[in-house]
Protein backbone atom coordinates (compact mmCIF):
# COMPACT_ATOMS: atom_id res chain seq x y z
CA UNK A 1 0.00 0.00 0.00
CA UNK A 2 1.04 3.64 -0.34
CA UNK A 3 2.47 5.57 2.59
CA UNK A 4 0.21 6.85 5.35
CA UNK A 5 -0.83 10.51 5.32
CA UNK A 6 0.44 12.88 8.00
CA UNK A 7 -3.19 13.48 8.89
CA UNK A 8 -3.69 9.77 9.63
CA UNK A 9 -0.46 9.49 11.60
CA UNK A 10 -1.39 12.59 13.63
CA UNK A 11 -4.71 10.90 14.42
CA UNK A 12 -2.91 7.82 15.75
CA UNK A 13 -0.69 9.98 17.96
CA UNK A 14 -3.85 11.63 19.30
CA UNK A 15 -5.20 8.24 20.35
CA UNK A 16 -7.21 7.14 17.33
CA UNK A 17 -7.32 3.34 16.88
CA UNK A 18 -5.17 1.87 14.13
CA UNK A 19 -6.91 -0.37 11.63
CA UNK A 20 -5.27 -3.71 10.77
CA UNK A 21 -4.08 -2.49 7.36
CA UNK A 22 -2.32 0.65 8.56
CA UNK A 23 -0.98 -1.29 11.54
CA UNK A 24 0.61 -3.80 9.22
CA UNK A 25 2.03 -1.04 7.00
CA UNK A 26 3.59 0.68 10.00
CA UNK A 27 5.20 -2.58 11.07
CA UNK A 28 6.88 -2.91 7.68
CA UNK A 29 7.58 0.68 6.60
CA UNK A 30 10.47 2.41 8.37
CA UNK A 31 9.68 5.76 6.80
CA UNK A 32 6.10 5.88 8.06
CA UNK A 33 7.24 4.58 11.45
CA UNK A 34 9.72 7.45 11.72
CA UNK A 35 7.00 9.97 10.84
CA UNK A 36 4.60 8.37 13.33
CA UNK A 37 7.28 8.65 16.00
CA UNK A 38 7.79 12.34 15.26
CA UNK A 39 4.11 12.90 16.13
CA UNK A 40 4.41 10.75 19.24
CA UNK A 41 7.45 12.75 20.41
CA UNK A 42 5.50 15.96 19.91
CA UNK A 43 2.50 14.68 21.87
CA UNK A 44 4.59 13.34 24.73
CA UNK A 45 6.58 16.57 24.72
CA UNK A 46 3.37 18.51 25.40
CA UNK A 47 2.27 16.03 28.05
CA UNK A 48 5.68 16.26 29.78
CA UNK A 49 5.68 20.04 29.59
CA UNK A 50 2.77 20.18 32.00
CA UNK A 51 1.03 23.51 31.88
CA UNK A 52 1.04 25.67 28.82
CA UNK A 53 3.06 28.80 29.49
CA UNK A 54 1.42 32.14 28.78
CA UNK A 55 4.02 34.14 26.89
CA UNK A 56 4.73 37.63 28.11
CA UNK A 57 5.65 40.44 25.73
CA UNK A 58 8.49 42.80 26.62
CA UNK A 59 7.54 46.46 27.12
CA UNK A 60 7.67 48.69 24.04
CA UNK A 61 10.80 50.54 25.13
CA UNK A 62 12.82 47.37 24.48
CA UNK A 63 12.05 47.65 20.77
CA UNK A 64 12.94 51.35 20.88
CA UNK A 65 16.28 50.45 22.44
CA UNK A 66 16.99 47.87 19.75
CA UNK A 67 16.03 50.26 17.03
CA UNK A 68 18.24 53.06 18.25
CA UNK A 69 21.18 50.70 18.83
CA UNK A 70 20.82 49.26 15.36
CA UNK A 71 20.70 52.75 13.89
CA UNK A 72 23.81 53.77 15.82
CA UNK A 73 25.58 50.69 14.61
CA UNK A 74 24.70 51.38 10.99
CA UNK A 75 25.86 54.97 11.40
CA UNK A 76 29.21 53.95 12.86
CA UNK A 77 30.12 51.23 10.43
CA UNK A 78 31.82 52.24 7.23
CA UNK A 79 30.26 49.50 5.14
CA UNK A 80 27.03 49.31 7.07
CA UNK A 81 24.63 49.94 4.21
CA UNK A 82 22.71 46.76 3.88
CA UNK A 83 20.62 46.84 0.75
CA UNK A 84 17.30 47.75 2.22
CA UNK A 85 14.65 47.70 -0.49
CA UNK A 86 12.78 50.96 -0.78
CA UNK A 87 9.39 49.29 -1.14
CA UNK A 88 9.62 47.53 2.19
CA UNK A 89 10.63 50.75 3.87
CA UNK A 90 7.73 52.64 2.41
CA UNK A 91 5.18 50.03 3.30
CA UNK A 92 6.36 49.92 6.87
CA UNK A 93 6.69 53.67 7.34
CA UNK A 94 3.96 55.22 5.28
CA UNK A 95 1.20 54.65 7.77
CA UNK A 96 3.06 56.87 10.20
CA UNK A 97 2.60 59.88 7.97
CA UNK A 98 -1.16 59.53 8.19
CA UNK A 99 -1.12 60.11 11.90
CA UNK A 100 0.34 63.56 11.57
CA UNK A 101 -1.78 66.59 12.14
CA UNK A 102 -3.19 68.13 8.99
CA UNK A 103 -1.50 71.43 9.78
CA UNK A 104 1.93 69.90 9.92
CA UNK A 105 1.45 68.12 6.62
CA UNK A 106 0.21 71.28 4.89
CA UNK A 107 3.21 73.23 6.18
CA UNK A 108 5.69 70.62 5.07
CA UNK A 109 4.10 70.31 1.64
CA UNK A 110 4.25 74.05 1.18
CA UNK A 111 7.92 74.01 2.11
CA UNK A 112 8.51 71.14 -0.28
CA UNK A 113 7.03 73.22 -3.08
CA UNK A 114 10.11 75.42 -2.85
CA UNK A 115 12.29 72.59 -4.15
CA UNK A 116 11.72 73.37 -7.81
CA UNK A 117 12.53 77.04 -7.32
CA UNK A 118 15.47 78.15 -5.22
CA UNK A 119 16.23 74.53 -4.38
CA UNK A 120 17.89 74.06 -7.74
CA UNK A 121 20.47 76.72 -6.99
CA UNK A 122 21.65 74.83 -3.90
CA UNK A 123 22.96 71.94 -5.90
CA UNK A 124 26.66 71.41 -5.46
CA UNK A 125 27.74 68.90 -8.05
CA UNK A 126 30.67 66.59 -7.39
CA UNK A 127 32.31 68.86 -4.87
CA UNK A 128 35.10 66.98 -3.16
CA UNK A 129 35.57 68.01 0.42
CA UNK A 130 38.87 68.02 2.28
CA UNK A 131 38.04 64.65 3.83
CA UNK A 132 37.90 62.93 0.47
CA UNK A 133 34.11 62.74 0.41
CA UNK A 134 31.96 63.83 -2.50
CA UNK A 135 28.92 65.95 -1.75
CA UNK A 136 25.82 65.06 -3.77
CA UNK A 137 23.39 67.56 -2.31
CA UNK A 138 23.09 69.98 0.53
CA UNK A 139 20.59 72.25 2.21
CA UNK A 140 20.64 74.96 4.82
CA UNK A 141 18.68 74.03 7.93
CA UNK A 142 16.13 76.44 9.33
CA UNK A 143 14.93 76.75 12.90
CA UNK A 144 11.15 76.44 12.44
CA UNK A 145 10.29 78.79 15.29
CA UNK A 146 12.51 81.67 14.14
CA UNK A 147 13.28 80.75 10.50
CA UNK A 148 16.90 81.49 11.33
CA UNK A 149 19.57 79.41 9.61
CA UNK A 150 20.91 76.89 12.11
CA UNK A 151 23.42 74.85 10.17
CA UNK A 152 23.42 72.56 7.19
CA UNK A 153 22.57 69.04 6.04
CA UNK A 154 24.30 67.34 3.13
CA UNK A 155 24.44 63.98 1.42
CA UNK A 156 28.04 62.78 1.04
CA UNK A 157 29.49 59.71 -0.62
CA UNK A 158 32.31 58.08 1.27
CA UNK A 159 35.25 56.44 -0.46
CA UNK A 160 33.61 53.02 -0.19
CA UNK A 161 30.44 54.25 -1.90
CA UNK A 162 28.36 54.53 1.29
CA UNK A 163 26.10 57.55 1.24
CA UNK A 164 25.68 59.48 4.46
CA UNK A 165 23.50 62.33 5.57
CA UNK A 166 25.76 64.74 7.46
CA UNK A 167 23.97 67.10 9.82
CA UNK A 168 25.61 70.11 11.44
CA UNK A 169 23.29 72.15 13.61
CA UNK A 170 22.83 73.61 17.08
CA UNK A 171 22.08 70.71 19.39
CA UNK A 172 20.12 71.32 22.56
CA UNK A 173 19.38 68.51 24.93
CA UNK A 174 15.71 68.11 25.85
CA UNK A 175 14.54 66.47 29.05
CA UNK A 176 12.91 63.03 28.61
CA UNK A 177 13.10 63.29 24.84
CA UNK A 178 15.46 62.51 21.97
CA UNK A 179 16.30 64.46 18.84
CA UNK A 180 15.49 62.34 15.80
CA UNK A 181 16.56 62.86 12.18
CA UNK A 182 14.19 61.95 9.33
CA UNK A 183 14.11 62.06 5.54
CA UNK A 184 10.63 62.70 4.14
CA UNK A 185 9.28 62.62 0.58
CA UNK A 186 7.89 65.76 -1.00
CA UNK A 187 4.33 64.38 -0.88
CA UNK A 188 4.86 63.91 2.89
CA UNK A 189 3.57 60.36 2.64
CA UNK A 190 6.71 58.36 3.22
CA UNK A 191 9.60 58.88 5.57
CA UNK A 192 12.46 57.08 7.18
CA UNK A 193 14.11 57.71 10.49
CA UNK A 194 17.87 57.82 10.18
CA UNK A 195 18.56 57.86 13.88
CA UNK A 196 19.21 60.17 16.78
CA UNK A 197 21.27 63.32 17.02
CA UNK A 198 23.33 63.61 20.18
CA UNK A 199 25.66 66.52 19.41
CA UNK A 200 26.10 69.43 16.97
CA UNK A 201 27.37 66.98 14.36
CA UNK A 202 25.82 63.72 13.23
CA UNK A 203 26.45 61.34 10.34
CA UNK A 204 23.77 58.88 9.31
CA UNK A 205 24.23 56.11 6.78
CA UNK A 206 21.58 56.13 4.07
CA UNK A 207 20.61 52.51 3.28
CA UNK A 208 21.97 51.24 -0.05
CA UNK A 209 19.26 51.18 -2.67
CA UNK A 210 17.30 53.88 -0.89
CA UNK A 211 16.41 56.64 -3.35
CA UNK A 212 17.26 59.61 -1.17
CA UNK A 213 16.41 62.02 -4.00
CA UNK A 214 12.76 61.08 -3.54
CA UNK A 215 13.01 62.09 0.13
CA UNK A 216 14.41 65.62 -0.03
CA UNK A 217 12.99 66.95 3.25
CA UNK A 218 15.47 66.70 6.10
CA UNK A 219 13.49 66.95 9.29
CA UNK A 220 14.66 67.06 12.89
CA UNK A 221 12.08 66.42 15.57
CA UNK A 222 11.69 66.13 19.31
CA UNK A 223 10.57 62.62 20.18
CA UNK A 224 9.35 61.95 23.72
CA UNK A 225 10.96 58.82 25.19
CA UNK A 226 7.57 57.14 25.35
CA UNK A 227 8.24 54.11 23.21
CA UNK A 228 6.08 55.36 20.36
CA UNK A 229 8.04 54.92 17.11
CA UNK A 230 5.88 57.37 15.14
CA UNK A 231 6.94 60.89 14.29
CA UNK A 232 5.77 63.09 17.15
CA UNK A 233 4.75 65.90 14.82
CA UNK A 234 7.00 68.24 16.84
CA UNK A 235 9.62 69.35 14.32
CA UNK A 236 12.20 71.91 15.31
CA UNK A 237 14.46 72.14 12.28
CA UNK A 238 13.97 71.51 8.60
CA UNK A 239 15.75 71.84 5.29
CA UNK A 240 15.09 70.75 1.71
CA UNK A 241 17.90 69.14 -0.21
CA UNK A 242 18.44 70.81 -3.55
CA UNK A 243 18.81 67.97 -5.98
Amino acid sequence: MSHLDDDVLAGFAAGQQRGPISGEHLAQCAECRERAESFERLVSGMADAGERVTLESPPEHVWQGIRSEVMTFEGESSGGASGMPEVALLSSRRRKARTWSAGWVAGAAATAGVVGGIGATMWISGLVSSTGETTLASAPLADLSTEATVGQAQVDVRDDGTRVLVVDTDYHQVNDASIEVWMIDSAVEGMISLGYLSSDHGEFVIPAGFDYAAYPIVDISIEPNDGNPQHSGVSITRGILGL
Partner: protein
Amino acid sequence: MVLGAAHDPLATIDEAFARGDEAALELLYRDVSALVFTLAKRALGTDMDAEDVTQQTFVSAWKGRDGYDPERGPVRAWVVGIARRRIADALAARSRDVRVATKAASEAFVAEVGGREMDRVLLSYEVESLGDPQATVVSMAFFDGHTHEDIAERLDMPLGTVKSHIRRGLVVLRNRWEAWDVAS
Protein backbone atom coordinates in the same frame (compact mmCIF):
# COMPACT_ATOMS: atom_id res chain seq x y z
CA MET B 1 9.41 41.91 -2.82
CA VAL B 2 6.86 43.75 -0.75
CA LEU B 3 6.95 42.22 2.68
CA GLY B 4 3.68 43.71 3.86
CA ALA B 5 1.80 42.37 0.87
CA ALA B 6 2.97 38.77 1.18
CA HIS B 7 0.32 36.28 2.16
CA ASP B 8 2.40 34.97 5.03
CA PRO B 9 5.05 37.49 6.09
CA LEU B 10 6.92 34.80 8.02
CA ALA B 11 7.47 32.78 4.85
CA THR B 12 9.63 35.56 3.43
CA ILE B 13 11.15 36.84 6.64
CA ASP B 14 14.16 34.50 6.65
CA GLU B 15 15.41 35.66 3.26
CA ALA B 16 14.63 39.31 3.92
CA PHE B 17 16.46 39.21 7.25
CA ALA B 18 19.53 37.62 5.71
CA ARG B 19 19.52 40.33 3.05
CA GLY B 20 19.56 43.02 5.73
CA ASP B 21 16.03 44.30 5.32
CA GLU B 22 15.20 46.40 8.36
CA ALA B 23 11.48 45.68 8.00
CA ALA B 24 12.29 41.98 8.50
CA LEU B 25 13.93 42.78 11.83
CA GLU B 26 10.72 44.42 12.99
CA LEU B 27 8.56 41.51 11.82
CA LEU B 28 10.92 39.07 13.49
CA TYR B 29 10.74 41.08 16.69
CA ARG B 30 6.93 41.11 16.63
CA ASP B 31 6.96 37.33 16.12
CA VAL B 32 9.49 36.10 18.68
CA SER B 33 10.17 38.88 21.20
CA ALA B 34 7.59 37.44 23.62
CA LEU B 35 9.23 34.02 23.31
CA VAL B 36 12.72 35.43 23.99
CA PHE B 37 11.48 37.64 26.82
CA THR B 38 9.57 34.81 28.47
CA LEU B 39 12.54 32.43 28.27
CA ALA B 40 14.81 35.09 29.73
CA LYS B 41 12.44 36.06 32.49
CA ARG B 42 11.88 32.48 33.60
CA ALA B 43 15.62 31.90 33.70
CA LEU B 44 16.72 35.20 35.21
CA GLY B 45 13.73 36.09 37.37
CA THR B 46 13.51 39.84 36.86
CA ASP B 47 11.92 42.04 34.21
CA MET B 48 15.00 44.22 33.99
CA ASP B 49 17.41 41.36 33.23
CA ALA B 50 14.95 39.84 30.77
CA GLU B 51 14.59 43.17 28.97
CA ASP B 52 18.38 43.48 28.72
CA VAL B 53 18.73 39.98 27.31
CA THR B 54 15.92 40.58 24.82
CA GLN B 55 17.52 43.78 23.59
CA GLN B 56 21.01 42.23 23.36
CA THR B 57 19.63 39.22 21.52
CA PHE B 58 18.01 41.21 18.71
CA VAL B 59 20.87 43.68 18.40
CA SER B 60 23.36 40.78 18.20
CA ALA B 61 21.20 39.00 15.64
CA TRP B 62 21.05 42.10 13.45
CA LYS B 63 24.76 42.86 13.71
CA GLY B 64 25.60 39.21 13.11
CA ARG B 65 23.12 38.59 10.31
CA ASP B 66 25.94 37.68 7.91
CA GLY B 67 26.33 34.56 10.02
CA TYR B 68 22.75 33.47 9.44
CA ASP B 69 22.06 31.06 6.59
CA PRO B 70 18.37 30.66 5.66
CA GLU B 71 19.18 27.22 4.24
CA ARG B 72 19.87 25.94 7.72
CA GLY B 73 16.55 26.81 9.28
CA PRO B 74 14.13 29.59 10.20
CA VAL B 75 15.58 32.80 11.57
CA ARG B 76 13.38 32.51 14.69
CA ALA B 77 15.27 29.36 15.70
CA TRP B 78 18.60 31.05 15.07
CA VAL B 79 17.54 34.00 17.24
CA VAL B 80 16.44 31.74 20.08
CA GLY B 81 19.89 30.10 19.90
CA ILE B 82 21.43 33.54 20.43
CA ALA B 83 19.00 34.21 23.29
CA ARG B 84 20.07 31.00 25.05
CA ARG B 85 23.70 32.08 24.94
CA ARG B 86 22.81 35.56 26.21
CA ILE B 87 20.84 34.06 29.08
CA ALA B 88 23.79 31.83 29.94
CA ASP B 89 26.10 34.87 29.81
CA ALA B 90 23.82 36.82 32.12
CA LEU B 91 23.72 33.96 34.61
CA ALA B 92 27.45 33.53 34.39
CA ALA B 93 28.00 37.23 35.07
CA ARG B 94 25.67 37.00 38.03
CA SER B 95 27.57 34.01 39.37
CA ARG B 96 30.84 35.91 39.10
CA ASP B 97 29.28 38.71 41.11
CA VAL B 98 28.59 36.44 44.01
CA ARG B 99 31.82 34.50 43.51
CA VAL B 100 30.14 31.22 42.84
CA ALA B 101 31.82 28.72 40.54
CA THR B 102 30.86 30.37 37.28
CA LYS B 103 31.45 27.59 34.87
CA ALA B 104 29.43 25.05 36.79
CA ALA B 105 26.52 27.43 37.24
CA SER B 106 26.28 28.43 33.59
CA GLU B 107 26.66 24.87 32.39
CA ALA B 108 23.92 23.74 34.72
CA PHE B 109 21.72 26.46 33.33
CA VAL B 110 22.42 25.73 29.68
CA ALA B 111 21.44 22.14 30.39
CA GLU B 112 18.27 23.37 32.02
CA VAL B 113 17.20 25.72 29.21
CA GLY B 114 18.07 23.03 26.74
CA GLY B 115 15.70 20.64 28.43
CA ARG B 116 12.20 20.57 29.70
CA GLU B 117 11.85 24.24 30.54
CA MET B 118 12.96 25.23 27.06
CA ASP B 119 10.60 22.74 25.43
CA ARG B 120 7.69 23.92 27.53
CA VAL B 121 8.09 27.55 26.46
CA LEU B 122 8.81 26.69 22.82
CA LEU B 123 5.79 24.40 22.61
CA SER B 124 3.60 27.04 24.21
CA TYR B 125 4.82 29.54 21.64
CA GLU B 126 4.11 27.15 18.78
CA VAL B 127 0.66 26.23 20.06
CA GLU B 128 -0.17 29.91 20.44
CA SER B 129 0.99 30.48 16.86
CA LEU B 130 -1.68 28.04 15.64
CA GLY B 131 -4.32 30.61 16.46
CA ASP B 132 -7.75 29.80 17.83
CA PRO B 133 -9.74 27.63 17.92
CA GLN B 134 -6.92 25.17 17.10
CA ALA B 135 -4.64 26.53 19.82
CA THR B 136 -7.28 26.06 22.52
CA VAL B 137 -8.29 22.61 21.32
CA VAL B 138 -4.70 21.32 21.05
CA SER B 139 -3.80 22.87 24.37
CA MET B 140 -6.75 21.23 26.16
CA ALA B 141 -6.01 17.85 24.58
CA PHE B 142 -2.27 17.64 25.18
CA PHE B 143 -1.18 20.10 27.85
CA ASP B 144 -4.24 19.56 30.04
CA GLY B 145 -5.04 15.96 29.07
CA HIS B 146 -8.75 16.40 28.39
CA THR B 147 -10.51 13.70 26.32
CA HIS B 148 -11.82 14.67 22.91
CA GLU B 149 -15.39 14.20 24.14
CA ASP B 150 -14.73 16.46 27.09
CA ILE B 151 -13.31 19.18 24.83
CA ALA B 152 -16.30 18.90 22.47
CA GLU B 153 -18.67 19.39 25.37
CA ARG B 154 -16.78 22.25 27.02
CA LEU B 155 -16.33 24.17 23.77
CA ASP B 156 -19.76 23.22 22.45
CA MET B 157 -18.14 21.92 19.28
CA PRO B 158 -18.98 18.77 17.27
CA LEU B 159 -16.66 15.86 18.15
CA GLY B 160 -15.57 15.49 14.51
CA THR B 161 -14.51 19.14 14.43
CA VAL B 162 -12.48 18.72 17.61
CA LYS B 163 -10.69 15.71 16.14
CA SER B 164 -9.93 17.42 12.88
CA HIS B 165 -8.58 20.53 14.67
CA ILE B 166 -6.33 18.22 16.66
CA ARG B 167 -5.03 16.34 13.62
CA ARG B 168 -4.43 19.47 11.57
CA GLY B 169 -2.91 21.28 14.51
CA LEU B 170 -0.51 18.41 15.13
CA VAL B 171 0.64 18.36 11.51
CA VAL B 172 1.44 22.10 11.57
CA LEU B 173 3.11 21.81 14.97
CA ARG B 174 5.23 18.82 13.95
CA ASN B 175 6.53 20.65 10.87
CA ARG B 176 7.41 23.77 12.83
CA TRP B 177 8.68 21.85 15.83
CA GLU B 178 11.29 19.98 13.81
CA ALA B 179 12.74 23.28 12.56
CA TRP B 180 13.88 24.07 16.12
CA ASP B 181 16.14 21.03 16.20
CA VAL B 182 17.81 21.95 12.94
CA ALA B 183 18.92 25.39 13.94
CA SER B 184 19.35 25.40 17.72
